[in-house]
């Protein structure tokens, strides 16, 4: 058996020394070191026992994890069901009075004019950057003259609609969910309900309609600004005439392409509106839950926009064929 060394207790195989004769005495520096070693030993033992307990509890932990997973799945399905019910409620009430025209216009203003600066900056930067990035690649194949065409296809068909929708989802999704969520926790929605003011019409239908109507408008504006950005870059880099730019840009595009790809943002707008309203409207609790709803609105809306984009593009390809094929 190796002698007990208080500074290397792990090397000692036997029991710790007892009494002052075998170990350093209390009250001396050695004694303090001894008590430190004892503490370290106790801590190690506790950790070791903890590990054993940990291993013993593995089965239980697995069951617990499965239960938690089951709980999460149940919660997910419950939320998904509630969202579908909310969508059903929207369509059931959309056709019925009262038609809150003035509030819908207010909300369209909120979606439109108040987001215009943000989407303009996004559009301009997309156009300039796309033109700068693509020029070199196209030049390598001697296809620089196709730059406007490539820009138009990229911007109108995909980047413009999706990026605009995601930017708007960030700005509006969080705003709508936070606004409705705080109205919910401060009982303002109940106040509308008990005053027979039909809060679903006033708060939800107006916002969803405003989003569905204004997303395509904002996308169109962003597309035009992005093309302007591309033209500015082209004219600065290669002195391209604007008539040539416009003629080349729309040469390979059909009107149906623009309509379908801009029109799909109405679906994205609907998604942002309905998801954000649903999350805000279903807030229970306090400010923490309001913040969570705002965050979830942005994340969920953005994910659903990307998923919906895949579906819509697939359907449009099936119906209209590849771009320019008509």
């Amino acid at each position, binding site marked *: 058996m190796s002698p007990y060394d208080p500074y290397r207790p792990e090397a000692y195989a036997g029991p710790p020394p007892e009494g002052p004769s075998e170990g350093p005495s209390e009250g001396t520096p050695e004694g303090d070191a001894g008590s430190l070693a004892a503490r370290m030993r106790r801590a190690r033992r506790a950790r070791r026992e903890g590990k054993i307990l940990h291993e013993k509890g593995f089965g239980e932990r697995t069951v617990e994890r499965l239960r938690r997973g089951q709980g999460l799945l149940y919660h997910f399905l419950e939320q998904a069901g509630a969202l579908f019910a909310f969508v059903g409620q929207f369509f059931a009430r959309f056709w019925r009075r*009262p038609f809150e025209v003035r509030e819908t216009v207010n909300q369209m203003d909120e979606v439109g004019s108040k987001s215009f600066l943000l989407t303009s900056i996004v559009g301009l930067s997309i156009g300039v950057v796309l033109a700068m990035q693509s020029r070199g690649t196209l030049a390598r194949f001697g296809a620089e003259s196709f730059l406007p065409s490539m820009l138009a296809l990229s911007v109108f068909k995909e980047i413009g609609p999706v990026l605009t929708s995601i930017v708007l989802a960030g700005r509006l999704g969080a705003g709508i969910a936070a606004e409705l969520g705080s*109205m919910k926790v*401060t*009982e*303002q929605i*109940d*106040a509308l*309900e*008990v*005053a*027979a*003011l*039909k809060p679903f019409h006033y708060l939800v239908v107006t916002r969803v309609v405003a989003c569905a109507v204004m997303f395509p408008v904002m996308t169109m504006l962003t597309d035009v600004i992005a093309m302007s950005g591309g033209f500015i870059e082209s004219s600065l880099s290669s002195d391209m005439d604007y008539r040539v730019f416009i003629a080349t840009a729309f040469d390979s595009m059909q009107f149906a392409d623009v309509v379908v790809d801009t029109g799909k943002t109405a679906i994205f707008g609907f998604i942002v509106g309905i998801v954000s309203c649903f999350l805000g409207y279903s807030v229970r609790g306090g400010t923490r839950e309001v913040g969570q709803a705002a965050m979830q609105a942005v994340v969920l809306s953005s994910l659903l926009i990307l998923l919906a984009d895949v579906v819509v593009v697939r359907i449009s390809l099936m119906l209209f064929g590849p771009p320019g094929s008509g």
Partner: protein
Amino acid sequence: MIDVLQKEEAHEPVTGGATPPPDRVIVEMRDVHKAFGQKQVLRGVSLALERGTSAVVLGGSGSGKSVLIKHVVGLLRPDRGEVWVKGERVDLLDGDALDRKRLSIGYLFQSGALFDSMTVYENMRFFLDRHTKMSKGEKDDAIMEVLEAVNLPGTREQYPAELSGGQKKRVGLARALILKPEIILYDEPTTGLDPVSVRVVAELIVKLRDERGISSISITHDLLAAGIITDRAHFLFEGKIIASGTLAEVRRGDHPALQEFFEGTEVYGGV
């Protein structure tokens, strides 16, 4: 005089085949049960409110007082039992019929629930725009009348965030009054107010009963307010009304929860 659109039209009252309460009873709850998931909140609540009187429902926090009052206005539906308002089963009404019934009920929320994006004037104008065909001048007069009734004519252009807690409750009360309801439900009308404001709000409730004949149910745990407001008090404990009568009678009840409540309230800031 405010001519509220879609006031209750003459139609066959919805009774669900049950016997309606007598005409002098404006609100009645019969054996109301309500659970949220596994949690049973109301376990057979029965109470009646007579026309032109004020009832107070007392009880500790979490005893289900707010849940109870929300049944009267149709914000919640009972799992079992009947809720009668003005001779009709509110628990069986929905859509426009429920909305019409709601127009005869005012509701003062605990926080006032004023729309914070609107001024005090706009808060009330919003109700009038949607439920009346009054001219702008008539609406302005009606708004000033209710603001004067709650002694806050100077707050017309202020936003809710600029008002004190007591002012918010009084503006909330003014908003509840704007459509001239026959019944007002008060959810903790004096919670969080200083004793002077408690007295002001409580006396206002009494004034509305005496001068306008408004029947009311207040839920509170504030004995100072209850003492001023109440004609009839009910004590809610574990989802049941365990004592009813005048406040003095309820106070004298021998149930341990009553003793605990009244002693606790008195020790911790009541009368």
